[in-house]
Each structure stands twice: as structure tokens, then as C-alpha cells.
């Protein structure tokens, strides 16, 4: 089993509902966020193109944060989800330095925190909070090892990209373009 997320940049309207849902679901302290929306504008007026992306931890296959963690607090659990075990984290910041996506932050309580793909919901068979609230239904979450899952079908039929694949992390958030 390998969890992944596909996000349709053509359907995303950049409402930031995913961000608020995550903050509420995961008790993210004020001023912090585990996911965020980026507006990427390319070209020169009048030939401009806008891409909206809901971004978060890419739950990389070759996660540099897991490699660099001196205590093993950053780890990959079943389904390929990258998590931080708070009681093992010393707050050295090596994982934050090693993340090409800047997807981690230091929680006010001292440990490093990040997106967990809502592991507590996923183990109960629910969708992550961000996916479940998306008003345009532009996010797909599921098992890419299962060829018949919705996300596998989306990835089979749509053009896609990952962010900074040249960083060598093998990211698992796919953007449908």
C-alpha cells in the first residue's frame, strides 16, 4: 500500500479551505500551517498563466528529512506516510534544513511538526481533512498500489507533475496539469 495525493490544478480555485480544515482538524497553533496554497504566475502580460496549487509535505519515497534525523523521530510508517514522533524529536532542525519543500515547522512546544496525511483519519478509513472539505473536489487521496483506486485512474488518464523532482526525493503529491 502506498498513499498519495493528486491535486487538480485546473479545478483548484485557491479558496484555502484545505488550509483552514487542516488547522482545525489537527489543532495547528495560530500562525502556523501544515498546508498552504501557492499561486504561480508565469509569462508576461497579456500572455500570462496562473497555476493554483494546494501544497503540503510530499511524503517522499526517499525522504531527506528521515535520512537526516539523528534520533529516528522522523520516520516512514505504513502506507509511506512520513511522520514525526514528538517524544523522540530533539528539535535540532536538521529535517527542516533538509526539506526542499519547507513543509515542516517548529511547533511552539519545541518539537517539529508537519502534515501527517491525517493519519488518524486515514486509519479509520476516512479521507484527510483537506481532501474531505475541498469545495471543487480537486483533491484525490488513496492507494496508488491499487490499480483500480480513484487516484490511480486519475494518474493514468491525466498529465501530471511533481514539485522539484530534481531534488531526488521522489515526492508523492501529484499535480494534475
Amino acid at each position, binding site marked *: 500500500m502506498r498513499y498519495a495525493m493528486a491535486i487538480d490544478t485546473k479545478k483548484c480555485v485557491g479558496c484555502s479551505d484545505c488550509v483552514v480544515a487542516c488547522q482545525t482538524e489537527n489543532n495547528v497553533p495560530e500562525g502556523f500551517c501544515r498546508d498552504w496554497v501557492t499561486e504561480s504566475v508565469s509569462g508576461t502580460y497579456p500572455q500570462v498563466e496562473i497555476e493554483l496549487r494546494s501544497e503540503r509535505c510530499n511524503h517522499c519515497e526517499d525522504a531527506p528529512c528521515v535520512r*537526516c534525523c539523528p534520533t529516528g523521530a522522523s520516520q516512514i510508517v505504513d502506507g509511506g506516510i512520513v511522520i514525526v514522533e514528538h517524544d523522540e524529536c*530533539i*528539535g535540532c*532542525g536538521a529535517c527542516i*534544513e533538509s*526539506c526542499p519543500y*519547507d513543509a515542516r515547522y517548529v511547533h511552539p512546544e519545541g518539537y517539529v511538526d508537519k502534515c501527517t496525511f491525517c493519519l488518524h483519519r486515514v486509519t479509520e478509513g476516512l479521507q484527510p481533512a483537506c481532501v474531505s472539505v475541498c469545495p471543487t473536489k480537486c483533491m484525490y487521496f488513496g492507494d496508488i498500489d491499487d490499480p483500480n483506486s480513484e487516484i490511480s485512474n486519475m494518474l493514468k488518464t491525466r498529465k501530471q507533475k511533481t514539485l*522539484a523532482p530534481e531534488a531526488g526525493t521522489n515526492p508523492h503529491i501529484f499535480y494534475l496539469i
Partner: protein
Amino acid sequence: MKEEIFISGRNLPHIDPHLELWHWPISLYLFLGGLAAGILFFAALVVLFRKEDKYIGAVKYATIIAPIAIGVGLLALLYDLSHVWYAWRLYVTIRLESPMSWGAWTLMLVMPVSMLWTLSYFKEYFPKWNWDFGFLSYFDWIIDFVIYHRRVLAWILVPSTILLGIYTGILLSAFNARPLWNNSILGPLFLTSGLSTGAATIILMSKSHAERRMFSMIDLVLIGIELFLIIHMLMGMLAGSQVQHEASLLLLGGEFTVSFWVFVIILGLAFPAILEIFELVGFKVPAIIPALLVLLGGIMFRFIMVEAGQLTRYLY
């Protein structure tokens, strides 16, 4: 043209608008780690070559600084940890994949060995100490034991100080997300710089002209290697991928150009090298000046690399 903005209002402390998580404690720690490694490496070599009588400053006086430097470095590191009460977790795991893990263990090996080394010269620091006084006689026995086994300490120190010195660079170069750090030259470069600052400290602590001359020569060679490695690193980045190319421009025209070239290249390497050459060909140059400049260059190099590296990243 491409422009990217966060429209969900992201403003994470120490991460946005650009990463600035690691500050002076990390730079200081990397400098002191390299310095201690350098001092102890030379002290161990002197003992292994049985030249203790000739290079007293290296084996006896400069080595007092090593455990102090490691101690202060460790305190700086602890100060930087945000979840500090869990710091003991570092020493219940060994993760060879993580440079910080094996580096912390190397430090934990070098620190007590450096203390034992200093202890083995305790009687020479305080020749008039009265050892017959009660429980002190136990210390007497321990000190005699470490004096007898000083060569064993030296054999442990040679590989472990090289590991410690190179670790200070590998710690940064292992982060593939930061293109300025992510090059394989950084480990050898920081090791060379650490050895050079170690030699400079020995020059400062030495009272013998012959010893200062010897370590000036060693320092000169190390400065040459360091300059070569810096040029090699910048060449590699300029010929590398887009992100590495942009990272090198921070030192070649960008924000850190002046501080890098003035404090590291000119004042920290070129100028002390010229002074040392003058001294070796017979001019009278106070040995303290090139040595202090090398130390200044070493500490500035760590500060610039730590700060500048965090500005570099992958863009997508």
C-alpha cells in the same frame, strides 16, 4: 517570467519568507568542533612521532583549549535545540545515515579523550601540587595511568579528530535541499579549515620559535589546500545545475560577496599566507597576527556558509 506567492497567508516563523532556522550557535559549534579537531590531531601526531620535547606548545598548551572548545560548542548546540529536554535521545540511537547522529557520537568520543589528554599533563601544569593529601592520591594513580597510555589516546585521536573535522562539513553537505551546502567538497574543506585553525592556535600557544616556524609551514600548506578547495567548490557549482549556479552567485556578486571575499579569502587566507611566507623567508613578523587572522577567517567562513546556505533552495 515566473512569480510565486502564498495566497493562503503562510508566514511560518524562521521559515518564511526564507529559511533562517540555524544561527550563530550552529556556526560557532561548527567552528569550535573543527578547531578542537585540528588542535588534537596535531597533538596526537606529535606524540606518535615522538617529538613531544620539540613541540611542547602543540601537545601541552594548545590542547587545554580543545575540551573547552568542545564543551562550549556542545552548550551552543544544546541552546539551539528547541526540544532540549529530549536531547538524550541523540545518545540512545546511532543512525549512520544521519551525519548529525554519528557526528554527535564522534564528539562524545573525542570530548572525554581530550579531557584525559589534558589530565595527563596536569602534573606539568602544576608541578608544585601536593599529591599526598588524602583522596588526591587516587587522582595521582589515574594521572600516572593516562600518562603511561598517552600513545593509546593519540592513536584514538588521529582517526576520530579527522572524522570530527570532516563531520562539521558533511553535516551541511548532506542537506540536498540547500544547493550551496550540497556539494561533496564541503566536508574536506571544513576539515582543512579546522586543521588550519588548529595549527593557528598552536602558533598562538607556543613559546618556541622552532615550533611556531614548523606550524606556520603546516598552516601555509593548509591555506593553499583550502584556497584550492574553495575554487574547486565554486567551479563545480558554476558548472552545476541551475540551483547550484544560483547558489554560487551569492558568493560571486550576491549578498555575501563582500563578507566572503574580504573576511574569508583576503583577511582569513591570502593575507596570513603572505605574512607566513614573509616570516619563513626571514622577515620579522609577529606570529600572533597571521594566527589570529586565520582564526577570524575560520569563524567568518562558518557564519557565512551557515547563513548563506539557508537562502538557497529549489524553486518550482
